C-alpha cells in the first residue's frame, strides 16, 4: 500500500469544501477538515447536517462543488473517474449501515471480492480474506452465507471486506445503525482493535454515544463543522464501549434493529 510521505501527514484534507446539489440544496457550506494517519474520528450530526455528503466526498464517490478534497495525498478534483476508482480500490475501505453483502456468496468470497479491483490474484484474495475474517473474530465463519449469520456478524464481515486490503482510511457510515446493542458492541470492538493496530477510521454517525466513544468528534450542523478538537486528537484510544454497557444493562439501544435505513442523506 502507499507509503506515508513526510510532507503529507494527512489522510483526509478538506479545505473550504462546499457542495451544492442540483436543485440548489447547499449540503456543505465551507468545510475544513484534516485527519491524520491513525486517528479514530467520529463525524457526528443530526439528519440533514451534511454528514453523508461529507462521507461521499471523503470516499471520493462524489466531487465537491468548490474547495479542495485531498485523500491520501491525491487531489480528487484532478482525477478522472478511472483514477478515482483506483484510489478507492487501494486507499479506501467502506462499511455501510446496510452491510451490502452478496446473498449467495460465502463470507470468505464476500470479503475476497473486496480485493477484486486491486489486481490481486484470486488465491491471494482468498488468503487475505481469511486473514481479515480472522481479524474481526469470524475465522470460524468462513463458509457461512450472510443469511446464516447474525446482524453483528454480517457487519463484521463487511468490516473485514473493507480492511482486507489494508486501506489507509476506513469509512464507516452508521456501522451500528441496523444493529442491536450487543451486535453494535461487537462492531465497535472490531473498530477499536483496528484503530489500535493503526488504521485511520472515520465513523459517520448520528448516535451521540458512538460519537462520545471516539477520541475525536467532528460535529457537523447545517453544512458546517461546528466543533472539532483538531487534527491529531483522534490518535488516543477510544473510551469504554457504550454499546457493551447498554447490552449488559439490558437497555435497548437508541438504534435498535431498524429495518429501514435512517434518512442520513436528508440534506438532499
Amino acid at each position, binding site marked *: 500500500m502507499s507509503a506515508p*510521505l513526510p510532507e503529507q501527514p494527512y489522510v483526509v484534507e478538506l479545505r473550504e469544501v462546499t457542495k451544492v446539489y442540483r436543485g440548489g440544496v447547499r449540503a456543505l457550506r465551507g468545510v475544513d477538515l484534516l485527519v491524520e494517519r491513525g486517528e479514530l474520528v467520529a463525524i457526528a450530526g443530526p439528519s440533514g447536517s451534511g454528514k453523508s455528503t461529507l462521507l461521499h466526498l471523503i470516499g471520493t*464517490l462524489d466531487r465537491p462543488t468548490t474547495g479542495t478534497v485531498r485523500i491520501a495525498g491525491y487531489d480528487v478534483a484532478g482525477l478522472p473517474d478511472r483514477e478515482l*476508482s483506483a484510489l478507492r480500490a487501494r486507499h479506501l475501505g467502506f462499511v455501510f449501515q446496510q452491510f451490502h453483502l452478496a446473498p449467495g456468496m460465502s463470507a470468505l468470497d464476500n470479503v475476497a471480492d473486496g480485493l477484486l*479491483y*486491486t489486481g490481486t490474484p484470486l488465491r491471494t484474495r482468498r488468503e487475505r480474506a481469511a486473514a481479515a475474517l480472522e481479524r474481526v473474530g469470524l475465522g470460524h465463519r468462513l463458509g457461512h452465507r450472510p443469511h446464516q449469520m447474525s446482524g453483528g456478524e454480517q457487519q463484521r464481515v463487511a468490516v473485514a471486506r473493507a480492511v482486507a486490503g489494508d486501506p489507509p482510511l476506513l469509512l464507516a457510515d452508521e456501522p451500528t445503525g441496523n444493529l442491536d446493542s450487543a451486535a453494535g458492541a461487537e462492531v465497535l470492538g472490531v473498530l477499536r482493535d483496528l484503530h489500535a493496530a493503526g488504521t485511520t477510521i472515520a465513523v459517520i454517525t448520528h448516535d451521540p454515544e458512538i460519537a462520545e466513544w471516539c477520541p475525536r468528534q467532528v460535529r457537523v450542523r447545517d453544512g458546517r463543522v461546528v466543533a472539532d478538537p483538531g487534527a491529531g486528537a483522534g490518535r488516543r484510544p477510544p473510551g469504554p464501549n457504550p454499546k457493551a454497557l447498554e447490552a449488559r444493562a439490558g437497555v435497548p439501544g437508541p438504534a435498535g434493529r431498524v429495518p429501514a435505513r435512517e434518512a442520513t442523506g436528508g440534506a438532499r
Partner: protein
Amino acid sequence: MTRERLTPARLGPSDVLRTGAAGLRTRPARVLLSALGIAIGIATMIAVLGISSSSREQLMRQLDRLGTNLLTIAPGQTMFGEQAKLPVEALGMVRRIGPVRTASATGLVDTTIRRTDRIPKAVTGGIAVQAATSDLLATLEGKVVKGAWLNAATEARPAVVLGATAAQRLGIGRIGVQVWMGERWFTVVGILGPMPLAPEIERSALVGFPAAEKYLGFDGHPTTIYERSAEEAVEAVRAVLPRTVNPENPEEVTVSRPSDALAARAAAAGAFTNLLLGLGAVALLVGGVGVANTMVISVLERRKEIGLRRSLGATRGQVRLQFLAESLLLSALGGVAGAVLGGLATVGYALSRGWPPVVPAWAFAGAVGATLVIGTLAGLYPAMRAARLSPTVALAAT
C-alpha cells in the same frame, strides 16, 4: 502532486466471468426462463438445418449407390406432333457405342394385365405391360425379391415378372400365380424390388421380347432404352445417342438422365428450409429481447451492488464489462442448450426416417456467433446504464 499515478487494476478474464456468473447464480429461475428463449431459437435453426442436411445427405448417398451413369433413351415426337418410334435396331446400335457397358430395352405392349378374365378390360390399375430384354435387370442393377428374372427359356414363354408397385396393386405376393394378359393366362415367375432410377419399371409387368411378339402382338419397337457407360463418358455418349439410335431422324429421340431427378431433389431439399430458418431467427430475436429485458431488470434491482462495487474501486468500464459478461453468459447458456436440443431433434428425426443424421459444422458455428451477437446487443444498453449510474445514487437506492 508528487504521488504515483493511479491506474485501475485490470480484471482477468476469469474474474470477469466470475462476476458475470455471480449475478446469474442468485436468480436461477429467471436465468433458465430467459435462456430458454434463446435456446428455442437456436434449437429451431439447428434442427431445420440439420434435418434438411440429413435429408440431402440421404439423397446424395442414394445417388452414390445408384450411380449417375445411367441414361434412358425414349422416342420423342415427329415433326408433325405424332408419337415417334425408335427403330427396331436401336438397341443394337447403342450397344455398339464404345464406352457403353450395358444397354437394354423395354417396349410398351398394347394390352393390359388383370387378375382374371372376369375383370373388365378398362381396369388396368395403372400397370403397363412391357416387353423387356433379358439383361434389363443387370443394366438397372435391380433386384428380384421373389422368384427369378426372365431367362432364355422363360422370355419366350407366357411368363411375367412384376414390378414392385405392380405386384402390390394386383395384390400378388408370391410367384406361380396366373394372371390374364391379352387373351390368355400368363404365370408370374418373379417379383422385383424397388427401382429408384426407373420407377416406371416398378409399375410394369414385364414379359420377354419373343413372348410379347408371339402372344401379345408386340411390334418389336423399343420404347425405352436403358444404357450404362463409364462415368466419365456419360456426356460424350449422351451427345452421340440420338444419331446412333435414329440416324434418319435424330431429333425424334429424347435422352434423359434419371439421376438428374434425384440430384434435383437433393438440391431442392434445402429450399423449403428458408421459411423455417426465418421462424427460428424470429424466435432467437424474441429470446434476445427477453435477455435484454432480464438484464435491464437486473441492473435496476442491483443498484446497491453496483454502488458497492464502485466503492470497492470498480471503474465504470468494469461495471459495464460485468453486466455485458452476464448477458453473454446468459445467452451462451441458451445457445449451448439450444444447440444440444437442436442436435438431438435432428438425430431423432433422421433416425426415425432412416436417414444419416448430419448437422453441418457451420450451423453450430453460426449458432455460437448468433448467441454472441444477441448477448452483446441485449447486454449493451443495460450495461451502459449500470456504468452510468452515479455511485452515491446507487448506494442510496432502496
